[in-house]
């Protein structure tokens, strides 16, 4: 137990010092003592008898030491018959009484100041903890965390948040013995409504006697309610509660100091909550913008619809696999922010295709349809003039025009057509040299010049996105996007980087970009089944182009990864549809 009364304010060390000076004003052989209200010695000076309290009045003078009319102890001075004992004794007693009063006052002021210090420290810590949270959920858990740190005598607590669209209150988090279902009715009570609208918070230590409370939640005995407000908006409330009869001592569950602390906490939390709400709103708008941008790019070409979205999801899953992996990537851990960065890099990696000519981008044949029609006219003219069958030749040419790979006998066929004059003596062949060059593309349907056009897209993406100030949140996103067509053996573009020069994130993006392209129809080739697509990835890996560990990791988990992504996408589609 801590020391009370006299001893607290008239300290031993001080009294010893005081007595040695005071005794100098008295004749030799005098003694002084301070006794508590029971008469026991607290401190003495001079030849003090063991039990000065029992001395008769003619042997010792007793002066009461009182504070606010309450006697806390006595000053004893003796022997009474010594000269000056009475006068000095009275003065000494008066002095000690004054000192006692001033010390008491000093202590009270000190306690008040220390309480202010406590409050300031509380605010400082609460603001520090609350402002660290940029998400609404984190702010609320930090708020409840602070409540628990302060050890209020509550049995439980919860935070109600107002549904932004309606006027209902939902329980966001709760701790303690009662379930959210039991606690929900609190928000329907008149008590809750009135406190939220009309005050800065209130404590009700006896709910049974409050007319605004109709036992909405049984078992509740006491409640502390502190609203969460931003300027004029009511966002919700912090509620701490005490159960009925849980308090054996019949002591109030909550004190006004508790309410004061809670008010401090909720006001700090309110600010943090509006900040978080703004931040989440901005984040939401930004990601919606990025998704729209990706959708717009993909929409230019029917074959790539949804490609960016899928690549983003694949890249995210593969990065998560890297995080979980202990075999190849033991030391690699992507933070949540880094994972977001990879996702958005996936979403935006093809943005540069906006700068690629549409006829190149969506080219499905070696020669465009109109061009083929003109060749068809020339061929039919040649047929009519020469009287030879031409329809079969046109059909063969159209087949070549759509083919992914050129066969050796096709080359001869094309060469012949180039020498075929439409009419004898006329300076016009069925196929021009330029047309021959376009048909001669060995693989796919793009000429070298068109390939150069396509290959500009990573640099274009970089150029377009460069002006977005990603740097704080996503410091690597531009590099990841720029490098997504780089290959480990240096055969990629645009920089021809190799090996470790390429960011791991870029290598992830490269693997999943290739995989998704293989799994979908392209203009010049059909979609491959899962197993075949993986085989191609393995070939690329054996040629030293794609990261083998990443290909291996993706192969191991492809079934679940692909399934989850496709169901995610279906979900997205259905949501779009509803809106």
């Amino acid at each position, binding site marked *: 137990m*801590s*020391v009370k009364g006299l001893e*607290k304010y008239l300290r031993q060390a001080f009294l010893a010092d005081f007595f040695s000076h005071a005794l100098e004003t008295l004749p030799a052989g005098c003694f002084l003592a301070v006794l508590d209200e029971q008469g026991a010695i607290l401190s003495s000076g001079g030849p003090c008898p063991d039990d000065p309290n029992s001395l008769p009045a003619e042997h010792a003078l007793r002066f009461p030491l009182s504070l606010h009319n309450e006697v806390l102890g006595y000053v004893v001075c003796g022997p009474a018959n010594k000269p000056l004992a009475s006068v000095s004794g009275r003065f000494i007693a008066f002095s000690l009484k004054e000192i006692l009063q001033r010390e008491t006052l*000093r*202590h009270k002021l*000190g*306690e008040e*100041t*220390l309480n*202010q*210090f*406590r409050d*300031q*420290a*509380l605010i400082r*810590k609460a603001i520090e903890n609350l402002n660290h949270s940029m998400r609404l959920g984190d702010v609320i858990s930090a708020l409840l965390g602070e409540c628990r740190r302060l050890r209020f005598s509550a049995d439980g607590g919860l935070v109600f948040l107002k549904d932004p669209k309606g006027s209902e209150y939902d329980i966001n988090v709760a701790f303690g013995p009662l379930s959210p279902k039991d606690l929900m009715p609190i928000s329907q009570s008149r008590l809750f409504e009135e406190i939220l609208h009309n005050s800065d918070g209130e404590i009700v230590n006896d709910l049974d006697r409050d007319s605004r409370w109709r036992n909405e939640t049984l078992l509740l005995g006491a409640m502390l309610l502190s609203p969460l407000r931003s300027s004029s908006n009511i966002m919700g409330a912090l509620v701490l509660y005490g159960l009925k009869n849980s308090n054996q001592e019949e002591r109030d569950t909550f004190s006004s100091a508790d309410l004061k602390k809670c008010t401090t906490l909720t006001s700090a939390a309110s600010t943090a909550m509006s900040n978080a709400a703004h931040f989440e709103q901005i984040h939401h708008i930004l990601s919606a913008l990025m998704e729209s941008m990706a959708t717009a790019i993909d929409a230019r070409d029917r074959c790539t619809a949804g490609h960016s979205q899928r690549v983003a999801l694949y890249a995210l899953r593969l990065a998560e696999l890297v995080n979980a992996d202990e075999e190849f990537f033991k030391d690699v851990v992507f933070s949540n922010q880094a994972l977001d960065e990879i996702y958005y890099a996936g979403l935006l990696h093809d943005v540069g295709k906006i700068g690629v000519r549409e006829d190149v981008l969506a080219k499905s044949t070696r020669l465009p349809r109109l061009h083929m029609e003109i060749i068809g006219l020339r061929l039919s003219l040649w047929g009519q003039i020469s009287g030879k069958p031409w329809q079969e030749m046109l059909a063969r040419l159209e087949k070549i025009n759509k083919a992914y790979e050129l066969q050796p006998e096709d080359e001869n066929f094309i060469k012949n057509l180039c020498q075929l004059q439409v009419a004898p003596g006329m300076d016009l062949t069925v196929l021009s040299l330029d047309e021959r060059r376009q048909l001669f593309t060995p693989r796919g349907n793009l000429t070298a010049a068109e390939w150069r056009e396509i290959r500009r897209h990573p640099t274009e993406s970089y150029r377009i996105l460069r002006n977005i100030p990603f740097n704080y949140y996503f410091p690597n996103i531009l590099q990841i996007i720029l490098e997504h067509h780089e290959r480990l053996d240096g055969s990629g573009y645009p920089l021809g980087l190799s090996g470790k020069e390429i960011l791991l994130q870029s290598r992830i993006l490269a693997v999943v970009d290739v995989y998704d392209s293989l799994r979908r129809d392209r203009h010049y080739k059909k979609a491959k089944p899962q197993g075949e697509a993986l085989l191609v990835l393995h070939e690329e890996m054996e040629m030293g182009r794609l990261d083998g560990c990443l290909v291996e990791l993706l192969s191991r988990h492809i079934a679940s990864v692909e399934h989850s992504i496709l169901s995610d996408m279906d979900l997205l589609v259905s949501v779009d549809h509803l809106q």
Partner: protein
Amino acid sequence: MPHKVLIAEDEIHIRSLLEQTLEYLEDVHSVTILTAANGLEALEIIQQEHPRLVILDIMMPQMNGYEVCRRIREQKAFDDTRIILLTAKGQEADRKKGLCAGAQEYITKPFDPDEVLALAARLMDLPLPGGAL
């Protein structure tokens, strides 16, 4: 033997508030509270009284807290002396400097009384009621 604590702080009201904060240790664990109003006085008291714990304000006349700290740490006899440095809010940059000079802990003014009491008790291996904090 009961422990001693030295509070070295030139501002009398802060010193008094620190004394009041540590009263619990005085009352319950018979810890003796000593005070000094400047760095030199603090160093003298430390030499004479060997306090277990010293709460040192950094900005003090005659000798600042860092210097007192360094002087204590130069002597092997004071290896066991625990030191808490005290500085004004907003000078947290001093923290590292203080810890380098050999202090165990560092608190800012206005201090949190509960935190100071808990720190002091911990550094002196004394229990607090209910294991608060």
